[in-house]
């Protein structure tokens, strides 16, 4: 016999983790974008990739509570790995994607030990430095990475041996969307598992969490490694669908913008990255048309206002939608 408390807790957890109607609508809308807006495939492809990348940061920041300013490190390594794999004969996109992401996950695992301890500042500095270091490496070995010219000759084969990447980005978008959906479902399963809940506990209070017998460091290592896999998958998608990799994938701006994207969308409920990526793309496009060279000024202004006015108050309209996605919780 289960006591009433446990049963109630089970029911509450099940309610939180149940698939909400708004979620189904969200993915149907994404599917609709694929079929109804073929002309915007290139743009949507970018949005989906950025969204997956931001989802990865959400795992680290929203769930693990680690402030990372160098998340582009994993994105970039994934992109270079996927690009290089096509040049040495691994042309099947899915195989390349998985291999590149696994390789980057190893890097994520190794660097996770650097962010386990210390203050937020230590973590910011370490993550930032790892990204800068990797960019220096990519810059210094042009024989492999193409250096400042970028990696040329990235030529992935057809997806599943059937769909060739086309210049309009149709296949690219479909491929990115499918990969992102699958990874999203896995991430969703993961964060609502007991393991996922224990990671949230770590974020709330490390001391108490370790007191009830959850190994804090191990939880953070796992979530950081998984996040590295996800970021690398996003990078690999970019490399494969655009067939080009440049040093830009490792830039500081990428990590910084990513944080903005995630914060616009909201942390800690998985959809924030995807929604933030979509909003950011529209804002970026509007700003870039208005002031081509100086659009980052307005991005900066948005960041400052977000903090000054408060995230909750400024994202008034989307917030109501977010609440529905989050459910009653």
């Amino acid at each position, binding site marked *: 016999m289960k006591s009433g408390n446990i049963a109630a807790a089970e029911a509450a957890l099940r309610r939180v983790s149940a698939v909400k109607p708004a979620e189904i609508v969200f993915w149907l809308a994404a599917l609709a974008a694929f079929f109804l807006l073929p002309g915007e495939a290139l743009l949507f492809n970018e949005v989906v990739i950025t969204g997956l990348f931001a989802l990865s940061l959400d795992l680290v*920041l929203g769930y693990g509570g680690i*402030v990372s*300013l160098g998340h582009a490190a994993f994105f970039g390594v994934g992109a270079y790995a996927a690009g290089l794999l096509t040049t040495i004969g691994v042309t099947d996109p899915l195989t390349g994607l998985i291999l590149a992401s696994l390789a980057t996950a190893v890097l994520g695992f190794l660097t996770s030990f*650097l962010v386990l*301890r*210390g*203050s*937020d*500042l*230590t973590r*910011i*500095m*370490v993550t*930032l*430095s*790892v990204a*800068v*270091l990797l960019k*220096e490496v990519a810059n*210094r070995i042009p024989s492999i990475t193409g250096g400042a010219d970028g990696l040329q000759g990235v030529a992935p084969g057809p997806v599943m041996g059937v769909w060739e990447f086309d210049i309009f980005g149709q296949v690219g978008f479909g491929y990115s969307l499918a990969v992102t959906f699958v990874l999203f479902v896995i991430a969703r399963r993961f964060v609502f598992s007991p393991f996922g809940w224990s990671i949230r506990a770590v974020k709330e209070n490390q001391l108490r969490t370790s007191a009830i017998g959850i190994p804090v460091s191990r939880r953070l290592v796992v979530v950081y490694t998984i996040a590295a896999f996800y970021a690398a998958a996003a990078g690999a998608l970019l490399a494969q669908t655009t067939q080009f990799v440049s040093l830009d994938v490792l830039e*500081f701006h990428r990590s*910084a913008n990513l*944080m*903005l994207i995630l*914060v616009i969308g909201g942390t800690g409920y998985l959809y924030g990255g995807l929604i933030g990526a979509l909003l950011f793309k529209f804002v970026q496009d509007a700003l870039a048309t208005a002031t081509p*060279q*100086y*659009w*980052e*000024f307005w*991005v*900066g*202004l*948005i*960041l*400052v206002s*977000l*903090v*000054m006015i408060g995230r909750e108050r400024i994202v008034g309209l989307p917030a109501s939608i977010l609440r529905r996605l989050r459910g009653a919780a």
Partner: protein
Amino acid sequence: MATNLFDGLAYGMLLFVMAAGLSVTLGLMNLINLAHGAFAMAGGYITVILVNRLGVPFFAALPMSFIGAAVIGLGLERTLYVHVYRKSHLEQVLFSIGLVFMAMTAVSYLAGSEQQFIKLPAFLASRFDVLGVSIGAYRLLIIVVCGVLAAALQFVVARTRFGAQLRAAVDDPTVARGLGINVDLVFAATFAVGSGLAGLGGALGAEILGLDPTFPVKYMVYFLIVVAVGGSAGMTGPLLAAVLLGMADVAGKYYLPQFGAFIIYVLMIVVLLWRPQGLFVRAGR
């Protein structure tokens, strides 16, 4: 060898003057301010405009770069930073990155994105030999100016009434307020002086570090290293850290050019691994 050490010393002293303000706001007040480099950049550009466009003598422009950056710092502290002190670290990061983006684009809009060079007085370009060591006059000037500033800072923080108030306000703002210390004023003054010093450092360092709109991001990690490695027990720690960093960077780039900046980052990661907590905790707390 000795020349490299000398250049490294000059470079390190510059880093110290630029990061001194940050070692108080970040090291003591625990405000993650990634935009500190923007104040250094402001000082650099103020000097460029004064010297190159308006023909102000270099030595007259240096104090102006201090005042200019201090005024900007004070304005931002009173209007924006004051609301950020108590926010979460994530929000401080977002806020200061936003400021960096704005500063970078504003500068490239106003002055162009190319690298700027300050027209220095001719005698500063000379070199002379002392005991077989080739010494650049400009670097000697930097060492002297920054050395005097470092001594003055140490004196102010450790010996003056204001320094005592600052240390009290940082240790426990509530109790400090109870004792009648105007904590807001102390913080504002500290922030302004720190920004001013960054500006002066930016003006002095434009020649050595290069000055373009990406400056705040390029040297962000360096400033953070000075604060992190130097600790927060006084001005001596950051000074030592800055000098070591400067020498290591110059020596690294000279002797192992293929590794260049790697050494600094690897060193920093090692130091942070070695003392992940201790570096930011003040002795006796």
